[in-house]
């Protein structure tokens, strides 16, 4: 089996327009959540989100590109450009067939769908732009990344709701580990902050209208975010031979299904996913120093996740640091695991643990060290990134410093 390392990273989020800016926001415990600026916001009962503000698409892409790039594709390309640049990778004619792309997204081109539904339903027009289909399809971002960087191997998109990015990155890890691929661009992207996207979530009544406070006794729901993170996963010997920077090593991945409910999480599925990742990485629970929690800020998720951590780690759970960075960048749905992997890289590489901000009051059902409100220095050997999606789809990734 091959070893898999991360040699490039890129991101755009409510915390900043690069991986470095997003990680700096996490270090500072900055809140990127604020009032939403979208069409018809006055008709929403939820009017906050982790929205990317001050971004001008025309400054980044040509008119010809923008007619084909939904906002989620733009985010993926911006993050992908940064990841490729930071990796220093040159894709030769010989390497191109061994390079692939696997991205996660839940909604795909939702901005495009929302705009064009408005055109035909609300405005009663009978004609839409001819590129609506290639713009809205969930796999568009992966295709455009492959075209932008000449990645000619496996290329597809994974949709598993809020676990999409983790499933995508896990698959990319598997492809390189098995020898089927040498380099993978992987991560996820989401742009669900549109009228229809938020209106649909309102219906479930799990959204907060005043902030995301994971693990806190006063928490009252999740807050959506938007953005993307893309990484260069690379076979270790290939990376070493070209003298690449190595940000972290991906050492384990596991997936489970609760097989129980379409929205309510199940403690056992989450527990099995975490233990599965440890087993896959051939490490002991005591090797793990940090968990980036799924931590959505809903009553049920956070309680269930803490119980799962206790069930998986036993007495060791009290020594673990566990935080939810969704308190800062919001819940990026299908893109969330990718942005959150940055917190895991920061933990193992820089020894900085991103905090759970907005924390006001302990909840006895979430009595773990959730790194409240301020980042903390800690030496961490292995970090886990949890993603527990609607429908009981769980995916956990383990990384360590190299």
């Amino acid at each position: 089996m091959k070893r898999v390392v991360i040699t490039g990273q890129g991101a755009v989020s409510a915390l900043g327009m690069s991986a470095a800016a997003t990680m700096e926001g996490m270090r500072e415990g900055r809140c990127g959540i604020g009032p939403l600026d979208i069409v018809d916001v006055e008709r929403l009962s939820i009017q906050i989100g982790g929205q990317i503000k001050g971004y001008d698409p025309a400054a980044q892409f040509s008119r010809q590109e923008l007619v084909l790039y939904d906002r989620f594709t733009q985010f993926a390309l911006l993050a992908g450009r940064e990841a490729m640049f930071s990796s220093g990778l040159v894709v030769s004619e010989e390497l191109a067939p061994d390079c692939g792309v696997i991205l996660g997204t839940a909604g795909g081109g939702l901005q495009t769908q929302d705009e064009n539904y408005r055109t035909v339903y609300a405005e009663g027009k009978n004609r839409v732009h001819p590129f609506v289909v290639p713009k809205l399809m969930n796999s568009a971002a992966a295709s455009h990344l492959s075209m932008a960087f000449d990645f000619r191997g496996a290329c597809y998109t994974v949709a598993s709701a809020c676990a999409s990015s983790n499933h995508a990155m896990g698959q990319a890890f598997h492809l390189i580990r098995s020898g089927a691929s040498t380099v993978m661009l992987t991560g996820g992207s989401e742009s669900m902050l549109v009228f229809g996207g938020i209106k649909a979530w309102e219906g479930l009544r799990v959204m907060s209208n005043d902030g995301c406070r994971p693990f806190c006794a006063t928490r009252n729901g999740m807050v959506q975010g938007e953005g993307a993170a893309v990484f260069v996963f690379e076979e270790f010997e290939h990376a070493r031979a070209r003298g690449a920077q190595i940000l972290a090593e991906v050492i384990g991945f596991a997936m489970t299904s609760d097989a129980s409910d379409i929205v309510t999480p199940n403690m056992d599925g989450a527990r099995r996913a975490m233990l599965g990742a440890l087993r896959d990485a051939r490490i002991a629970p005591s090797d793990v120093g940090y968990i980036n929690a799924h931590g959505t800020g809903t009553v049920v998720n956070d309680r269930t996740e803490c119980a799962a951590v206790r069930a998986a780690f036993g007495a060791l759970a009290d020594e673990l640091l566990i935080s939810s960075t969704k308190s800062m960048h919001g819940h990026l749905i299908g893109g969330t695991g990718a942005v959150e992997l940055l917190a895991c890289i920061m933990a193992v590489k820089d020894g900085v643990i991103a905090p759970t901000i907005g924390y006001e009051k302990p909840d006895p059902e979430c009595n773990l060290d959730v790194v409240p409100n301020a980042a903390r220095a800690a030496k961490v050997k292995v970090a886990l990134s949890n993603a527990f999606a609607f429908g009981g789809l769980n995916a956990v990734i383990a990384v360590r410093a190299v």
Partner: protein
Amino acid sequence: MSDNVKNRVIEIIAEQAVIDPSEISPATTLEELGIDSLGLVESIFSIEEAFDISVPFNANAPEQSDFDISSVGAIISSVEGLVADSGHA
């Protein structure tokens, strides 16, 4: 009216080709302008929007369509016909 149609069609095609309208004459072909099949479909959409007409064009079989795309001049004539038929002029 005819000049308006002609100028507007040329503007649309020029925007698609990312060149100045003055560089386009009726004899110019889409191929010469580097407009591919996606670009053509987008141009037809812009023409439909601009003149509030429906252009009979099937990208699967362009040669069987009633809409002549062999040159910019042919497109202009076709659009003029459709505009006259539509009564929007």
